[in-house]
């Protein structure tokens, strides 16, 4: 099957493109912002694990920026869409400078969400891979359920303000830092419980996802991961965002993912 195309998206909300005002922006860790946009359509339809393409649009011809993918980090009752944005290269630096009242173009919700279906869930987040789990934990808390949240960063300076996480999610993540400057010292994978049977969800840098895949294989655990790949369109048309599937074909991260059951991917090639 070379052409999975958009049939994989059956049942998901149709994405919309909206110019949305930035309602608030807050520096929550080193180089990291929590931004909330006024975007009721996307807020109403998004599911945890889905993402948006965020850009400035074409209104100002001198400012060229392809949109960048960001996990939906939260949706508010007033139609807010929350994004956890870490300035990395040129595009994220430009987006981080958006000011309240300015607008951006949001395309979403996009991609395949996490499929938790009432299971016990353990979320393993590396860095801004925390974003989809804030959304998930908040949703679960609203439904009276709890998830386990394990969150790793390099050091204390990179850690997303725990008070804000608590307020958004009603959860208190188990924190790891590589240098031990906050939470427990070590990689986030140190928090994994070999005895648990919960569904594992992973989001973060590729080495983390690889470690999770190895752990899941070894312990016979179900695992879903959200992968990252450069994206052109975000909606399945440009074929820009492929990763290697377990069956050897290229799968599109934007529409067949970004969330994949671990067994759908070729871990030797990711």
């Amino acid at each position, binding site marked *: 099957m*070379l*052409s999975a*195309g*958009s049939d994989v998206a059956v049942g998901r909300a*149709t*994405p*919309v*493109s909206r110019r949305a005002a930035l309602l608030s922006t807050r520096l929550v860790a080193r180089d990291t912002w929590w931004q909330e946009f006024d975007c009721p359509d996307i807020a109403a339809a998004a599911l945890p694990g889905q993402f948006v393409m965020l*850009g400035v*649009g*074409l209104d100002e*011809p001198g400012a*060229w*920026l*392809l*949109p960048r993918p960001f996990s939906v980090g939260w949706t508010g009752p007033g139609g807010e869409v929350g994004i956890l944005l870490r300035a990395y290269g*040129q*595009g994220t630096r430009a987006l981080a400078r958006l000011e309240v009242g300015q607008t951006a*173009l949001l*395309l979403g919700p996009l991609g395949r969400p996490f499929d938790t279906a009432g299971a016990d869930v353990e979320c393993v987040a590396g860095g801004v891979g925390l974003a989809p789990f804030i959304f998930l934990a908040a949703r679960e808390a609203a439904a009276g359920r709890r998830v386990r949240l394990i969150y790793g960063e390099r050091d204390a300076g990179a850690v997303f303000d725990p008070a804000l996480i608590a307020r958004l999610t009603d959860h208190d993540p188990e924190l790891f830092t590589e240098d031990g400057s906050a939470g427990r010292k070590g990689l986030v994978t140190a928090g994994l419980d070999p005895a648990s049977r919960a569904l594992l969800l992973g989001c973060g840098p590729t080495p983390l996802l690889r470690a999770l895949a190895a752990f899941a294989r070894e312990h016979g655990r179900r695992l879903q991961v959200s992968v990252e*790949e*450069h*994206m*052109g*369109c975000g*909606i*399945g*048309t*440009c*074929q*820009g*965002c*492929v*990763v*290697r599937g377990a069956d050897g*074909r*290229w799968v599109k991260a934007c529409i067949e993912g970004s969330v994949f059951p671990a067994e759908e991917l070729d871990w030797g090639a990711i």
Partner: protein
Amino acid sequence: MFGAEFPSPVLLASGTCGYGQEYADLIPLDEIGGLVTKAVSLEPRPGNPPHRVAETPGGMINAIGLENPGLRGFIAEKLPWLREHLRRAQVFVNVVGHSAEDFAAVVRGLDGEDGFLGYEINVSCPNVKGGTMFGTDERALADLVTRLRGCTERPLVIKLTPNVPDVGDFARICEEAGADGLSAINTFPGMVVDIGRREPLIGNRSGGVSGPAILPMGVYATWRARQTCGLPIMGIGGIRNAEDALQYILAGACLVQVGTASFVDPGAAVDVHEGISKFLAANGVARLEDLVGALRSRPGTGPAIPAG
């Protein structure tokens, strides 16, 4: 144009709109001029390893590797949707091959089908026989167009590569060999180096550069093509707004295609059309055709010297 009505002079460019379906939810497809499909080859193509796309200054680079479901897959999985859902928007099928036989087989295989208007022939593709691209080899191009002309009576549009000393020469060759129209232009070969890893950023090493960065090159190619031949031209390259599109139109294009800009704003093609209509109204121009190729020469203009 091409024996058909175009609801708008603005189409979506090949490779940036898939086979239409995903855009149908985002924009009123039947209000734009139409779309050009992702390239269709005889056999399915798996495409290149990632990364396949990245931003470049004022543009982007892509090396998708012509991933597509092949002729049969296209007919089975993609064409039915186009046939059923598009009433007014016109469809060109972008065709690619590694030999003239390949191209001809795709065109013959499609020609009996409904659901599209004509072909856009993507000659920016290595010719396994000649070693060069069809689009940069005068003889190979002439042979290819002649051959395809024999396979179809539908509109046959050749998509020029800018990667030649003078696009005008290749435009004339297409006309002489029986093409019905031209698309100008495809992407420029480029490379991005990941200096941290000391590797090419793009999985295929090199890729094609598109976007606003190539706008003046596309306008120039359109103007050159218009000077050497009388075929209708679809202007492509870096179009973001009506002003960009009107540059192509004044340089000689009768239709335009929006590619990379749709990634930045899926509504770009709709907005370009709206902006053109406003421009016509504001300037008392009755029909867009009155602007096609209507570039005046500047007083005191000498012969054109490219640079320096």
